């Protein structure tokens, strides 16, 4: 059986965790009523949806890294993982910010969890993107 790339599997697991974050730590429930009477979800609802898509992309990329044979292809995909990690962090902060009040559900659990998982994704991506170190050939004991 072919040996899978551990870093790819770890990336896929983090991707799945990002998908599950809004399920485990839900964003704000409730709806906002507009002046025309129409009810719409709070903006953190869309943050969660966007993060679930990004999580899906990270998981797929992770699986590709795990199964790919070419080291160079894996390295390039890890660049993408690092980029997706940055997007995961930026989404709840700037791209689709969560609600304003710090005591709301989305800010208490979902947002910090997504930022931490984004940072882990970024770390995994950067680690996988590095150029392999040359082998050390000789040693003596002092």
């Amino acid at each position: 059986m072919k040996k899978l790339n551990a870093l790819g599997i770890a990336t896929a697991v983090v991707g799945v965790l990002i998908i599950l974050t809004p399920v485990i730590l839900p964003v704000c429930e409730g709806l906002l009523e507009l002046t025309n009477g129409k009810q719409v979800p709070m903006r953190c609802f869309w943050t969660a949806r966007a993060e679930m898509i990004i999580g899906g992309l990270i998981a797929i990329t992770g699986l590709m890294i795990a199964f790919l044979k070419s080291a160079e292809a894996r390295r390039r995909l890890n660049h993408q993982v690092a980029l997706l990690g940055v997007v995961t962090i930026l989404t709840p902060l700037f791209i689709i910010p969560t609600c304003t009040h710090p005591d709301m559900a989305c800010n208490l659990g979902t947002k910090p969890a997504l930022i931490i998982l984004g940072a882990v994704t970024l770390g995994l991506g950067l680690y996988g993107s590095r150029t392999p170190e040359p082998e050390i050939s000789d040693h003596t004991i002092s």
Partner: protein
Amino acid sequence: MKEIDLFSLALQNLRRKPYRSVAIGLCVAVMVGSLFIATIVLRGVQTSLSVGQARLGADLVVVPTGYETPAQEAFITGQPTTFYMPDQVESQIAELHGVAQTSTQVYVQTLTNAKCCIGEFFLIGFDPETDFTIAPWLATHLKGKPLGPLDVIAGDRILLREGDGATFYGTNFRIAGVLEKTGMGIDRTIYVPIEGLRQMIADSYGLAEQPLAINPDEISSIMVSIEAGADIIDVAERIEGQVEGVHVFTASQLNQAVARQMQGVMGITFGVTATLWLMSLLLVGLIFSLIVNERQRELGLLRAMGAPRRAVFRLVMSEAGLLTGLGGVSGLVISGVILMSFSRLIQLRLRIPYLLPSTVEIIAVEVGLLILALFTGALASLQPALSISRLEPYAAIRQGE
């Protein structure tokens, strides 16, 4: 030729078996991390209680019988609660021996998602003329400016800033100041002068979605300051004995209420951590016995090449120290990130007051836990390290073949 010392040799040995090293490191990381979170949360609660009690200012709090638990919850977590008793109770208490000062408060709950702020907040009507709980704060922060009937003081978590406007039950108020963070219920409380509060109650019939049904002669609690030298328990018992329908709680009872709330969670956390520590100790000890056994030939060769017993002993000890040290540092970093990110969620879920302890205290806890991690490694690998360093080189090489 690159020379390597004991430390880099130990590091290289650990890298030879990455999964085994990660497993041991992870075990120590979980142990150190959970102990760090438990310790900091516990210290955070104590810090918050001492700051909150100083702000509470009163020696005793008198509430109607049957409402002691919601009243304590309101002080600890800011969970809004409403209950009322006749205002004549205050004069009865003020006349009792040992009572120096009394001040009444009226509790009102904001409507969910009031015009100014999201969520429910606790409005407390206080009498600026008799109040001694937030009055010292007002004296220093308002710099002598008089507090108008519609000037309110907000807690730190309300997210209103000085000069902002806020509408409750149709009445417009102005934020005259924001109290410092305490981590307790005070942070989610808005203090309204009693005159403004009575006006808001009266106007609520015409202006609010839901009018407030509070009679002008009703109060919720009485803050009591006792005379110097008087025994706090004696005065509390005298009030409960001589005034009908009231319950008295002291600041120390607030501590007990928090201790009760935390007992279960903290007991489980410390129990799990103690088990984890024991497991780490056994695991590291067992794995190092195996490592030493597995590498008898290698270590025997090292001795044969002239490495003294001390060097072999130090090599095994360094490997254990490095592994548990790195595990400890990772545990501290990860748990620190988790604690900083989810402290508010922990506070709300456990319904506890929480204020981050000082940096010095956090660093002291971190250093202590790192020493514990290193001690665990040293203790667990002591026996295998001693046994291999005592073995003669020839015997070690033969046994390891």
